[in-house]
């Protein structure tokens, strides 16, 4: 689904010779519960070339400052609102004149120049931000500042850092922000439970093979290169989803829209309370190693609050996994407008009959929560069994 609710406009020049496509850039909805956002800063100006995925603005939401991406390649042709202003979701903030089909080489060239500039620039940051960054080993290049000349101020740092910084005063501000996040979770979950007819199916999946494979694979790797079970779970889920695509997508305007890509949202608990659910993109197309790398990257940035807006909005399905600290079974609540969420319980030992012998096996209870408006029990069961099958042959993931 196109998450950008803007519309395309076809402008015909008076001469009638060349047609230009102009796209609206709107205040994005970064969550089901988001109704408005504050435009804090434009990072582009009129005439600037932009490439799909570029960060063009900083918007403040209940979840803190978030980098806003542009979804088109072209040149910024109009800027309609100036910071600092609160805009309802869907408000046209700027327009971009598409160049993707006209002069690709030129745009690419400009882009490379822009990228170089961005990379060589040390981010401006206030002294206290630098101190916090040093103490907590934060990468400030991933933070967008809201201060003068784009300097990173204390308020631009994620909740985690604010909470942890030495000053006693920090607690006041961050507890306010935590409250905000709590409110956002409450509204999304209430909406989900009010509107989505959930049903739950659980299957114990044997993980002996998977664990054996992990042990073998990790044996000669340094700890920071180890592959964790989560990567296998994600890969297995992605593979199962390619087989059963009806669990992957969105239910909106009374109908299900299947998503082409498989972007799996991961629930990350924050230390000071609250959750973020960033997505790992195209899990079906990643190798196990790449998946692991993506998990590491997104967890770090998730805890620091440096997530991209798209990562917070474009998950097509969600998983939740609390690992060793978790419970046997997780009956999770679907994150609307998605239609399914997979809860992974903790590994436990179970006696099973294998070819007539009683064998002690490691199993995990995997629970699918699904939207009965879209999915039926049979599909859920098939999906869970497919998932189990994938996990028995980890070498093929």
């Amino acid at each position, binding site marked *: 689904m196109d998450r950008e609710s803007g519309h395309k406009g076809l402008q015909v020049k008076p001469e009638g010779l060349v047609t230009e496509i102009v796209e609206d850039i709107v205040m994005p909805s970064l969550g089901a519960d988001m109704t408005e956002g504050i435009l804090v800063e434009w990072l582009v100006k009129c005439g600037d070339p932009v490439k799909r995925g570029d960060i063009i603005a900083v918007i403040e939401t209940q979840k803190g400052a978030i980098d806003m991406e542009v979804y088109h390649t072209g040149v910024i042709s109009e800027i309609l609102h100036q910071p600092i202003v609160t805009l309802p979701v869907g408000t046209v903030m700027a327009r971009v004149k598409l160049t993707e089909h006209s002069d690709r080489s030129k745009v690419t060239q400009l882009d490379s120049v822009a990228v170089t500039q961005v990379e060589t620039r040390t981010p401006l940051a206030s002294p206290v931000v630098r101190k916090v960054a040093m103490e907590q080993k934060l990468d400030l290049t991933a933070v967008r500042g809201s201060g003068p000349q784009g300097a990173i*101020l204390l308020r631009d740092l994620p909740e985690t850092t604010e909470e942890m910084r030495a000053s006693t005063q920090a607690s006041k501000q961050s507890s306010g922000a935590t409250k905000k996040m709590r409110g956002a979770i409450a509204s999304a979950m209430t909406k989900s439970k009010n509107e989505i007819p959930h049903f739950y199916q659980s299957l114990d999946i044997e993980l002996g093979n998977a664990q054996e494979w992990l042990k073998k694979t990790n044996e000669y790797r340094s700890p920071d290169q180890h592959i964790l079970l989560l990567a296998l779970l994600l890969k297995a889920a992605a593979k199962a989803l390619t087989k059963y695509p009806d669990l992957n997508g969105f239910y909106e305007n009374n109908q299900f829209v299947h998503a082409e890509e498989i972007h799996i949202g991961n629930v990350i608990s924050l230390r000071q309370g609250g959750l973020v659910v960033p997505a790992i993109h195209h899990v079906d197309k990643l190798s196990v190693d790449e998946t692991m790398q993506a998990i590491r990257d997104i967890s770090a940035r998730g805890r620091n609050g440096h997530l991209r807006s798209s990562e917070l909005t474009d998950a097509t399905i969600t998983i939740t996994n609390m690992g060793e600290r978790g419970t046997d079974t997780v009956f999770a609540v679907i994150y609307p407008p998605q239609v399914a969420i997979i809860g992974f319980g903790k590994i436990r030992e179970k006696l099973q009959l294998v070819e007539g012998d009683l064998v002690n096996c490691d199993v995990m209870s995997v629970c699918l929560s699904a939207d009965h408006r879209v999915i039926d029990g049979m599909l859920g069961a098939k999906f869970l069994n497919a998932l189990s099958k994938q996990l028995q042959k980890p070498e093929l993931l």
Partner: protein
Amino acid sequence: MNAQTLTYREALRAGIEQALEDDERVFLMGEDVGRYGGCYAVSKGLFDYYGEQRIIDTPLCESGFVGVGIGAALGGLRPIVEVMTVNFSLLAMDQIVNSAATLRHMSGGQFNIPVVIRMACGAGRQLAAQHSHSWENFYAHIPGLKVLSPATHTDARHMLGQALEDPDPVIIFEHVMLLNENGEVSESPEADMESALVRRQGDDVTLITYGGCLHKALTAANKLAELNISAEVVDLRCLRPLDTDTFLGSVEKTHRAIIIDEGWKTCGLAGEISAIIMEQGFWFLDAPVKRLCTAEVPIPYPSHLEQAALPQVKQIVEMAQAIMEGR
């Protein structure tokens, strides 16, 4: 007896009276401090009561009588020397800087100078460019001197006594705009004379100031509270030695500082405090330190220009808002 309400002038006078009562080595000398009652009427009535041996009218010779005061302190007395305004004190600067501030050191610690020199300072009375300045920084620059700026009535009442107890030369600046103001005077000093005091607690920004600008900073802090900005106000009280711990502690809490100083900005106290924050509190900061000082112009006569030259509440509020918004 608890707190009583006095004008700043009365508080100063009460301090002088107390000193004269407590120690017979104490005397007051200066231009027109006796029969005239003091240019700003601070010593009014004292001559009649204490007589010419203890309330001494001097000729108009700042270098001469300040030097005599220093010599008398050297000889074992406890003089309170009043210089009519800070502008006139420039004529006595040789004695203050070359003698009072150096004798202890030059003599290898053999002699000390327990003199107290009071002077009026500050603008706001349309006294133009030779009677209105704030040069606390000149004296605060000098090792060997101590410089006090009583901004409250209690400090006006008690700082003189503390200064007289000090074995070294102390300069006290009395802002002319405070003289007629009423205020509460407590029975004892609020702190030792070298400590800064937090006059108002706050979380978002520290307003560091002294003397005549304190009430402006407090008024601004109240206005900022209406705008949801919580300002902490630090009254420096002693400009040399500076109580750096107090204002650095505040900046550590608020991460932002504005210094309000009636002196000129160039080479002034505000710059010094800012530099101390850079050196010792750099990692606390979330915004550049700001200075609000008097415009770089000799104080003009017309009221509107005089007011335009001086730091004002509105500017403090705007500066605090800007710093909070990251502008």
